[in-house]
């Protein structure tokens, strides 16, 4: 069957239901901005109407995308519903709406029982809204651009059908008014009683979704705009809005999927790499619940401060997250194994767990009234969380690990240094991460005890220590910290052939700062062995640093001799000459003897 035929079949099927057909100038771009007058009237009409709570439910798509598993959040029996699916199901109010097998269906979100079914001809679901009595569903129109909007009562009767060439977004319903986002910037209010466009509002931020949550009606995609008394000023940019701050995140996650694009029943990477937040109505307009927003990156979950986007916690999970929703008090996330976790907003600790009973292809979580609370037993300090996340051997997480490593590098406590040492020392660390870890380690200025413990290790074939510690960055850090207690350890690495040339260079540079008389023998040994046989500039530089240390320790003879000897490698010799010259005592000024005499004999008289 061709797409055009399907579209026709759809129209016929829907018309046969007896609902009102609307083919008008709805969603016209010839509309003139009324300065918010019409939407202001709508606010006056329904603004004080109570908004019913939506279901708190997790819905998983299982099997071969032909089975729904519902599990109420906060307790209740699981339900299942077998039906082929051609799009991701949607939770609207207390209804789960799905499409597939040439029909659209609505289930009671709490029980999974069928409320109604309507034939569609096979067009996939975009979004849905429900106000407790009527469900408004949008579909992607067959055969190209354009959409179909269907309003269905609880008894299955179609009360309104609208076809449009415009791509419509995911709608909401309030007081039998459908709020339909479209063209990325408009929300048209359709009076379901007559099919007329009762109002329209122009928003200043990308918007393709409308929904009710926390007793308010919201519009958004990239951020949140609240339907309140300020909505009439939306076109002037004065609506009540809230957003999450821009910050670097791995995989460029999105806050919401575009409402005018149908989501496949099987989750993809964009479902695993997501942001979640919950808008909250405030006296002044809108804010982010709990001052927290969340992000997932495959099996990592992260919590961020709402104001500045500062990382608050990170949590490593056993499987990839494929769906979720922010709630009051935390976030609920669903993984591809069908496990659902409730994570504390403040700490990322576990507040609750559920199990859908089998792996899922995708997962939809809807939370409205449920408030997550309790004291998580597995809450850990952020440094420890970061350490676990960064040290996990998981190549697919490297992008996130790099970011988390930078977070770790910015932390002041000593244990962050320990983690950086561990990451930089671990042979399993990804090469992509290793460079960052070493750079971060070089910039540390605390945790010297962990660095010294690392330096105590050397490559040792018989003891199965097959990787040298990150000597270079540790030496840089210890040198900058002027950590004299590290001098013997640094000296031992000067002579370790298993260390890299750069490691040796950095160890020598640090010794130029921290070496004491106890290191003289090692410095002489290194200087003697390499001053005429340094194979490259790194080792030549190390020779110069060793020479500098020897000069500082008043052992200038060997350095002065090397600076004059033609067999000394040229790179080192030039620099040693300069060092020796700078260290040489300056000849006294011609009249200094006279002055000394004068001082001894008292101030000179004019």
């Amino acid at each position: 069957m061709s797409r055009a035929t399907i579209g026709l079949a759809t129209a016929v099927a829907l018309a046969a239901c007896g609902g009102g057909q609307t083919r008008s100038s709805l969603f016209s771009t010839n509309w003139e901005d009324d300065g918010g007058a019409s939407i202001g009237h709508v606010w006056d009409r329904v603004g004080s109407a109570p908004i019913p709570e939506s279901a708190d439910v997790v819905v998983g798509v299982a099997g071969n995308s032909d089975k729904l598993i519902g599990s109420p959040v906060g307790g209740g029996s699981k339900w299942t519903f077998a039906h082929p699916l051609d799009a991701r199901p949607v939770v609207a109010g207390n209804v789960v709406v799905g499409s597939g097998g040439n029909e659209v269906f609505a289930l009671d979100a709490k029980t999974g029982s069928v409320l109604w079914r309507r034939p569609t001809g096979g067009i996939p679901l975009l979004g849905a809204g429900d106000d407790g009595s009527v469900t408004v569903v949008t579909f992607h129109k067959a055969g190209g651009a354009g959409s179909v909007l269907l309003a269905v009562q609880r008894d299955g009767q179609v009360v309104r059908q609208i076809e449009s060439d415009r791509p419509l977004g995911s709608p909401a319903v309030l007081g039998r008014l459908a709020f339909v986002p479209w063209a990325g910037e408009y929300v048209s209010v359709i009076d379901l009683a007559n099919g007329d466009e009762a109002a329209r509002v122009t928003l200043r931020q990308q918007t393709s979704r409308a929904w009710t949550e926390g007793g308010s009606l919201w519009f958004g995609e990239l951020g949140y705009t609240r339907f309140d008394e300020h909505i009439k000023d939306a076109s002037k940019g004065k609506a009540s809005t809230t957003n999450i701050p821009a910050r670097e995140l791995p995989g460029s996650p999105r806050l919401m999927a575009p409402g005018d694009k149908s989501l496949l029943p099987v989750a993809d990477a964009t479902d695993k790499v997501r942001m979640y937040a919950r808008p909250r109505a405030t006296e002044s307009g809108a804010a982010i619940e709990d001052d927290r927003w969340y992000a997932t990156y495959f099996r990592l979950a992260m919590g961020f401060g709402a104001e500045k986007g500062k990382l608050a916690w990170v949590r490593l999970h056993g499987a990839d997250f494929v769906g979720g929703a922010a709630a009051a008090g935390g976030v609920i996330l669903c993984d591809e194994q069908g496990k659902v976790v409730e994570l504390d907003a403040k700490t990322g600790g576990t507040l609750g767990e559920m199990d859908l009973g089998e792996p899922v292809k995708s997962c939809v979580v809807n939370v409205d009234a449920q408030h997550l609370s309790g004291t998580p037993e597995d809450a850990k300090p952020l440094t420890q969380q970061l350490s676990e996340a960064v040290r996990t051997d998981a190549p697919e997480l490297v992008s996130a690990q790099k970011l988390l490593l930078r977070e770790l590098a910015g932390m002041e406590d000593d244990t962050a240094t320990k983690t950086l040492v561990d990451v930089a020392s671990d042979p399993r660390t990804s090469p992509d991460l290793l460079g960052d870890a070493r750079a971060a380690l070089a910039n540390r200025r605390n945790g010297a005890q962990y660095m010294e413990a690392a330096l105590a290790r050397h490559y040792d074939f018989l003891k199965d220590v097959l990787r040298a510690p990150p000597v270079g960055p540790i030496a840089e850090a210890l040198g900058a910290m002027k950590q004299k207690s590290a001098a013997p350890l640094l000296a031992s690495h000067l002579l370790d052939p298993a260390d890299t040339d750069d490691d040796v260079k950095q160890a020598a540079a640090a010794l130029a700062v921290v070496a004491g008389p106890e290191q003289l023998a090692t410095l002489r040994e290194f200087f003697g062995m390499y001053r005429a046989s340094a194979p490259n500039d790194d080792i030549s530089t190390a020779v110069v640093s060793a020479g500098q240390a020897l000069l500082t320790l008043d052992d200038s003879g060997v350095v002065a001799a090397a600076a004059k000897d033609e067999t000394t490698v040229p790179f080192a010799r030039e620099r040693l000459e300069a060092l020796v010259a700078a260290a040489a005592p300056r000849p006294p000024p011609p009249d200094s003897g006279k002055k000394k005499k004068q001082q001894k004999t008292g101030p000179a008289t004019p």
Partner: protein
Amino acid sequence: MRAGIHASVALLLVAGVLVAPVHSAEAKPKASADVPRAVPLPADTLKRLRSGDVAQVKNALDDVRTSAKAGAPAAPAIGELLQQGLSPTLTQAAIDTLADTESEAGSASLAWYAHHRNVELRRAAVQALARTRGGEAVKVLRAALSDPDPGVRGLAATGLGSMKAKDAVGDLFVALDHRVAEAAASIGQLCAGNECDRLAGKLGSVPFDVVTSGLDQVLFRAPADVSDDMKVKIVGRVRELGTGEANRFLKDVQGKWPKTWSARVKQAIDQAVIATSGSPGAGGGSQ
């Protein structure tokens, strides 16, 4: 893993370093007219070594090498040169020269170069230390068993055997377990009592030719050094394998067994050869 250790042994076979057992009763050098007389060290050698002139230093090193052990008086001066630093070419020459002097006076300087970043110099220094000997040399060679370079590890293992460093047997067993094949022969040269038995116990877990490179050494050590009981026990261990390679090894031992040595051990070898001659891959009857 086995391929690696086999390859290592093959290299040694080619080099003729390890597998020639120390035939204690026959290997003692005889003072005879065949032994070349030492070339005396030229009088100005030390002066040339300390000249600071590269050509003269090189020339002096050549003279010391020619003098071999007789060049020992120059060892301290060569050690000083190494400690002051030389070009890579002269460094190599100085290390090799110190080795030829076999003077313990050179060990301290050679010890430096046993952890030089240039692996060729490191190998040369380890080889040289095995000849200059001394407590410092043993210490350095034991440490060199853990070197990142397999060549250095192997040379260190060999050196410890040739230096009779009995205290290093424990380290050599660890090295053998870490696929340092050269350790087997050294263990064979150094082991006492249960240590030799422990080496034989490696049959089956360590490649046959690696273990037998050590057992060969044990069997041909002087009767005063290794008891006949131990030798019979080792022969029995090999015999128990009942393989063609065991038969070939035993036949080789049989062929080399000194006529004046223990008849009891000889009998055990003969019987073992017969017992294993029917094994797949065995080369036929006894000699």
